[in-house]
């Protein structure tokens, strides 16, 4: 790795001040959370920052709590901790599964959801699950805080909406009410230690008559960044998730997908898998609306 300075500020104020100073001095700064992307990229010479700012000692980035009816996951909380948090495991089983798909047990001991999101890989597993669940990114700016929906946070392959000097502090989402369920599934040739060829996340909520009142479907690895497939969700609202409704949602998702062909799969293959996964994920989320969600 090329030389750099390492600092680990221990408060929000210290972090903000250090970011401002680095920006003023034109230092190429890279935030460090779990390092499972960053260290690999630096070892491979893809990144050569002058300053590494480790954010794990800033308490706000390690938060993992329910605040009223909002779930807050600090940006640097490791995957192993996030997926074991009772509310995540119980009310967000789809997100918990997406987290559990990241790398190995060792990678999950360090990899954060914040890093998975900031790294903005088109195939990052938590991103579609975060989008489907309506998560917002809480961002530390030079002056204060701002929030952005996760679907607006990812802007391209490896690109996010953070301006220079900004840091992701936490991810937050409303705690789901009754008759609600989420799911995430990905397609990979191997079951473990592989990268999604397609990933699909969904969050459904039913009204008290069992009709789908809201549906959010998010697609990963079929475009430069994960995105909310609004038409796919809209095709489900007002239905009970009958086979025709699932077909309509799958067709809308396949229409919205803009996949590329690469060594993991051709564009045509990806588009078809996307349709299949949408149907499976919606069916799974629907089942959870009437089991887990109905508690």
């Amino acid at each position, binding site marked *: *790795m*090329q*030389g*750099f*300075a*390492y600092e*680990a500020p221990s408060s929000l104020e210290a972090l903000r001040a250090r970011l401002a100073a680095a920006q003023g001095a034109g230092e190429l700064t890279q935030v*460090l959370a*779990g*390092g*499972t992307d960053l*260290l*690999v990229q630096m*070892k*491979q010479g893809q990144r050569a920052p002058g300053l*590494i700012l*480790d954010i*794990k000692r800033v308490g706000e980035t390690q938060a993992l709590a329910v605040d009223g009816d909002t779930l807050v996951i600090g940006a640097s909380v*490791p995957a*192993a*901790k996030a997926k074991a948090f009772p509310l995540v495991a119980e009310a967000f089983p789809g997100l918990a599964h997406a987290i559990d798909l990241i*790398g*190995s*047990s*060792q*990678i*999950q*001991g*360090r990899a954060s959801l914040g890093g998975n999101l900031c790294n903005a890989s088109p195939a990052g597993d938590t991103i579609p699950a975060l989008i489907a669940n309506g998560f917002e990114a809480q961002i530390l700016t030079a002056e204060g805080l701002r929030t952005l929906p996760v679907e607006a946070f990812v802007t391209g392959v490896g690109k996010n909406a953070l301006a220079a000097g900004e840091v992701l502090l936490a991810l937050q989402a409303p705690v789901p009410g009754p008759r609600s369920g989420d799911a995430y599934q990905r397609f990979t040739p191997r079951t*473990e*230690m592989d990268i999604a060829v397609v990933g699909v996340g969904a969050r459904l909520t039913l009204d008290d008559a069992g009709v789908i009142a809201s549906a959010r479907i998010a697609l990963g690895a079929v475009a430069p960044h994960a995105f909310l497939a609004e038409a796919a969700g809209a095709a489900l609202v007002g239905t009970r998730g009958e086979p025709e409704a699932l077909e309509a949602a799958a067709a809308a998702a396949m229409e919205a997908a803009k996949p590329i062909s690469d060594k993991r799969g051709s564009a045509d293959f990806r588009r078809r898998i996307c349709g299949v996964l949408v149907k499976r994920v919606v069916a799974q989320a629907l089942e959870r609306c009437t089991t887990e969600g109905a508690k």
Partner: protein
Amino acid sequence: MKVHVQTEVNGEAVEFLCDPTTTLLEVLRDNLGLRGSKEGCGTGDCGACSVELDGALACSCLILAAETQGRSVATIEGVATPEALHPLQSHLLKSAGLQCGVCTPGIVVAAKHLLEQDPNPTEEAVRYFLAGNLCRCTGYDKIIRAVLDAAAEMRGEAA
């Protein structure tokens, strides 16, 4: 500029100077003489460098040594006591769960972490949990068997 780090390794206070670019794996092997942790890949894929950092299982090749300031690190060297091997180690020997032995320290550290969380894992759970520990020699079966047998022994059941 060198970084001055004070940390704890296997329960003992240690202190070292290192370049900010140095990984924990390099410090363990080169500065502290703890050569049980191996470098198989350097990129988080093989698990041969597995350690615990503040109780979290991690690849030491993807940790900057500077990050360990004030933390606690547990490595393979802290697993056995002077009196006895850990049941995982004796069962790996008994089941012939190692050949060249390069993957073994990482497997022991990871499997120990698993059994501390779940003393009675299914075979499937062991296989998933150890998916990030690559072994090019054994074909895995004997390793999985050894972990299940060690778990049974640690629960007080005959293995």
